[in-house]
């Protein structure tokens, strides 16, 4: 069993990040090698400055707010929490003074970031069981939401145990030494990461996150990168 744990926590993480980074670069390069569209694709009237409206469209989804307000609330909550989550994981690597502008304990959010994410993901998933979104959805839409939900739920459980139930066997220091060892390519697994009562949560969290990263470049998740240039085409 320890071998399986090791494979998931070390080689598979490297593989996942490799596929993620190389995959994204390859996909973007392939798309950018295509010629630009011969005609402008603007929607009129064009509002100035175009770049500002492009940013607004990309990061605040005003059209969703206007047409699907409930979805918009969940979408905003979800994407903001994703950002916080990213910061939270960076802080598991090292202390960043920049992020401590608002002083907080690591992991930030006191467990609520993961909770909100999990609720949002359930909402996204359940709305896909109802027409007309049901009729538009394809299997990968469900798989991705389920996969992300699994990543979030196991990650959050570790956080909740520490933040809400004073579980102390796996500490931030343990995560930090594990992640740093990966970063400097001298992988080491602290005893607690594989032998404590919550090890299975870490292993499943990392396992599903690996799958998610590997699928990212080949799926609709590329909207995270392509949304900006696409909105630029519409806004000018």
């Amino acid at each position, binding site marked *: 069993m320890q071998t399986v744990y090791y494979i998931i926590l070390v080689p598979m993480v490297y593989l996942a990040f490799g596929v993620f980074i190389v995959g994204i670069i390859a*996909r973007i390069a*392939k*798309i*950018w090698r*295509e*010629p*630009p*569209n*011969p*005609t*402008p*694709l*603007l*929607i*009129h*009237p*064009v509002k100035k400055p175009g770049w500002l409206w492009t940013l607004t*469209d990309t990061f605040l*989804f005003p*059209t*969703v707010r206007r*047409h*699907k307000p409930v*979805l918009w609330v969940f979408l905003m909550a979800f994407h903001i929490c994703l950002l916080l989550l990213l910061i939270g994981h960076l802080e598991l690597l090292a202390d960043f003074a920049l992020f401590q502008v608002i002083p907080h304990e690591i992991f930030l959010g006191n467990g609520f970031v993961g909770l909100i994410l999990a609720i949002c993901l359930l909402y996204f998933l359940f*709305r896909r069981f109802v*027409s*007309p*979104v049901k*009729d*538009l*959805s*394809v*299997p*990968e*839409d469900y*798989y991705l939401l389920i996969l992300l939900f699994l990543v979030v739920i196991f990650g959050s459980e570790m956080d909740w145990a520490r933040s809400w139930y004073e579980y102390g066997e796996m500490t931030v220091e343990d995560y930090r030494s594990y992640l740093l060892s990966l970063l400097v390519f001298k992988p080491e697994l602290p005893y607690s990461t594989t032998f404590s009562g919550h090890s299975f949560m870490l292993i499943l969290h990392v396992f599903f996150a690996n799958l998610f990263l590997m699928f990212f470049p*080949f799926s*609709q998740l*590329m*909207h995270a990168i*392509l*949304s900006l*240039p*696409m*909105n630029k*085409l*519409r*806004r000018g």
Partner: protein
Amino acid sequence: MDEKTRDDLLQLFRSKFNRAMRFYLESCTRCGTCTDACHVYASTGQTKYIAAYRHELIRRLYKRYFKARGHLWPSLGEARELTDATIEELYEAAYSCTGCRRCMVYCPFGIDTQMLMSIAKLLLIGKGAEPEILTLLADTSIEKGKSMELFKEGFLTGIKRLEAEVVKQWQTEAGEAAIPVDVEGADLLYVALAGAHSIIPAAAVFNAAGEKWTLSFFEAVNFGAFVGDPSKTKLILDRIVNEAKRLKVKEVCVCECGTAYRVMKYLSGSQPFKVTSITEAHARYLKEGRIRLDKTKFPGPITYHDPCQIARNAGVIDEARYIIGHLTDDFREMTTDARYNWCCGGGGGLVALGDETLDFRMKSSRVKVDQVKATGATILSTACENCHTQLSNLNDHYKMEVDVQFLSSMVARALVPA
């Protein structure tokens, strides 16, 4: 479908790839925000008319043949084989889409459904499954460009007859040709449609404004664009571009035809002339005081239907309002935001297909009728031939009891003699 046909079709598919097309093919999340955008879905409630559903048909082929996933795990994205049945679905999707791009306003990423549908249209041509009449009309236009001499005589005789009409109604000054043709060094080349309604009122306004203009030998409409054939679109366009260069005009003014204007404006490339719509030209004459209009000519409230290809997709919006401001004090907007105007339901070649699509056009445009009725206007003006035909059909079918008018004709009729 045999192997060879499929390979040929996939080759056509590949020919449509560019950066924007790849963006659109890669990133739809099927979030459903576009659900209410399409007038066909809003009028009929059938899922197959939702924008995302339409372009997912294209995306399923893309996933099957242009991504590794299509071989490894096709069911993941419901990747589809290209078969005769798929072709039928593509026909249904492409020829129920008017290319109005209203859904592009809704999409959080701005995915262009019209562009994705152009893949479907090209595959249909490759399979010989496109509406034959559109190809036939496109070929006729191209043929006319090749052998202009053959058509010239008949064209000029026809123009003479129309000139008499212009003189009778607007009394052009003696000695001037009411409809100048083939004038080298003219300032403006006017590209009309076949039909007196597109030439006579325009001539009256150009003459009243003292414009140095000349009428094009060719009609503006581009059937190549309707059927989605890029090479034919280009050939039809080039006839006019070449004529404009030969006559050394400074401006090519396109009549009230949405497709013709957008194609001319965006596909003619960098040229020594500028491209305008007749609406822009009329607004300019009014602004410069070159023509004056009589506000009492059209009593009753007027509303204006923004043709998608001229307004949302090419930006001529304020000019029409400016003109109408000189025609009435009672103008009724259909929507507070021009981007959200409903399509008339006749674009994308549907009106050109005539009675064949009439039933569908009437059923799919109920929301447009509601929008017109809500204005309470008695005159429904527009600046596009297709829109005019479709709105007139809607007027008859739904008994809207409005007077459907071309904006340019209204300008001509309200001209105050100098």
